[in-house]
């Protein structure tokens, strides 16, 4: 057996991770939190991503969005540490913390846990305005369809976390399979001569082997991605239809950043999704922070917490 050199073979460490989306940390430089009367915090620990949002007097002040680690408490702490580093805020300065998302009960420094359903509705109502009625959140491991009233109170919802079809995870699967960065999937899905029929299988595992077969058959990657995005869209729409779709359609979560799916959902529903300047992934944490604000107004600040992390 003579020498073999596997040059530019990426070592596992530096291996390109196509599925990974951008992490981000932001603070409103125009504001000074010291001036705020009420400071609240919302922590959303999802199965895939975690966010921390800080509200100053019920307005968005700062947020941090990162991938969920292998322990929910740490993820919550790190999410907060991010904004803390950027703004100098410590937990001691925060009047009330609400935890939400998959790991909401594991947020060590939260005063109350509220489901992501209620928080997404509340957040969307703030981000999209009180005309928001229908909310779609495609999470990492689940898909939520929510209908809410002008106050952002949930009037109808369903969540599907049994099947990966129509979840962010399903999207990661295809980006991995195609070796295309997840952020590019949407754009690539439109770079096709003709729009292909949707991948027929509802099951992600089958869809995957269907996608492989398309490649085998000589489809371009873009075409396969298009077929897959279409399938995702059809899947999500069938869930939305259960709760009844109304104008004022708002999409939260990472999926909002994937035009490949969003545009196709709009096409199927015949409704345009509302625009927002704020990172759609923070909707849950934002909602949680707003709940926290209301709670402070109702029952006063919670006792300050020992700084975590």
């Amino acid at each position, binding site marked *: 057996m003579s020498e073999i050199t596997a040059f530019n073979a990426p070592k596992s460490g530096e291996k390109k991770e196509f599925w990974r989306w951008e992490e981000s940390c932001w603070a409103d430089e125009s504001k000074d939190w010291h001036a705020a009367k009420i400071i609240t915090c919302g922590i959303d620990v999802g199965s895939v991503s975690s966010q921390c949002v800080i509200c100053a007097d019920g307005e968005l002040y700062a947020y941090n969005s990162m991938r969920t680690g292998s322990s929910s408490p740490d993820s919550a702490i790190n999410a907060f540490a991010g904004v803390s580093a950027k703004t100098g805020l410590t937990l001691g300065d925060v009047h009330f913390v609400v935890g939400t998302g998959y790991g909401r009960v594991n947020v060590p420094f939260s005063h109350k846990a509220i489901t992501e*359903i209620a928080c997404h509705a509340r957040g969307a109502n703030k981000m999209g305005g009180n005309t928001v009625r229908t909310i779609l959140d495609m999470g990492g491991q689940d898909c939520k369809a929510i209908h809410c009233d002008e106050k952002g109170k*949930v009037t109808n*919802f*369903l*969540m599907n*976390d049994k099947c990966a079809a129509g979840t962010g995870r399903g999207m990661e699967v295809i980006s991995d399979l195609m070796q295309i960065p997840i952020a590019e999937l949407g754009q690539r899905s439109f770079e096709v001569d003709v729009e292909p029929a949707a991948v027929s299988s509802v099951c992600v595992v089958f869809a995957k082997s269907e996608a492989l077969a398309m490649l085998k058959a000589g489809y371009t990657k873009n075409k396969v991605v298009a077929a897959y995005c279409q399938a995702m869209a059809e899947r999500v729409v069938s869930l939305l239809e259960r*709760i009844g779709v109304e104008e004022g359609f708002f999409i939260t979560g990472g999926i909002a950043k994937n035009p490949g799916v969003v545009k196709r959902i709009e096409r199927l529903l015949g409704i345009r999704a509302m625009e927002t300047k704020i990172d759609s992934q923070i909707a849950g944490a934002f909602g949680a922070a707003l709940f926290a604000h209301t709670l402070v107004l109702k029952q006063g600040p919670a006792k300050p917490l020992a700084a975590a992390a």
Partner: protein
Amino acid sequence: MIANYGYKDGSGEYYISIDTDKCIQCEVGRACLTACPKSMFEAMVDDYDDEVVWIKAQFRKSLAYDCADCKPAAGHTRLPCTSACTPGAIRHSW
């Protein structure tokens, strides 16, 4: 609020819907809790501080099987849960 607990997968759509507006002021003393042979219902306080019932988490991903015993195939003409809930807060999607 209409709360849908359940799932849709390759084999179909299985949701139990609970109309919390009818559920909050339960006029039948939470009859559903005892009506369900598997005690799948549970009373809890929701995000808006109202007491309502929901489906216990361990059943939410297997309703098709958990509810089979109460379906016509098992000789039932009416579902125990929906029959017990005379205000009509509970509905099955299948």
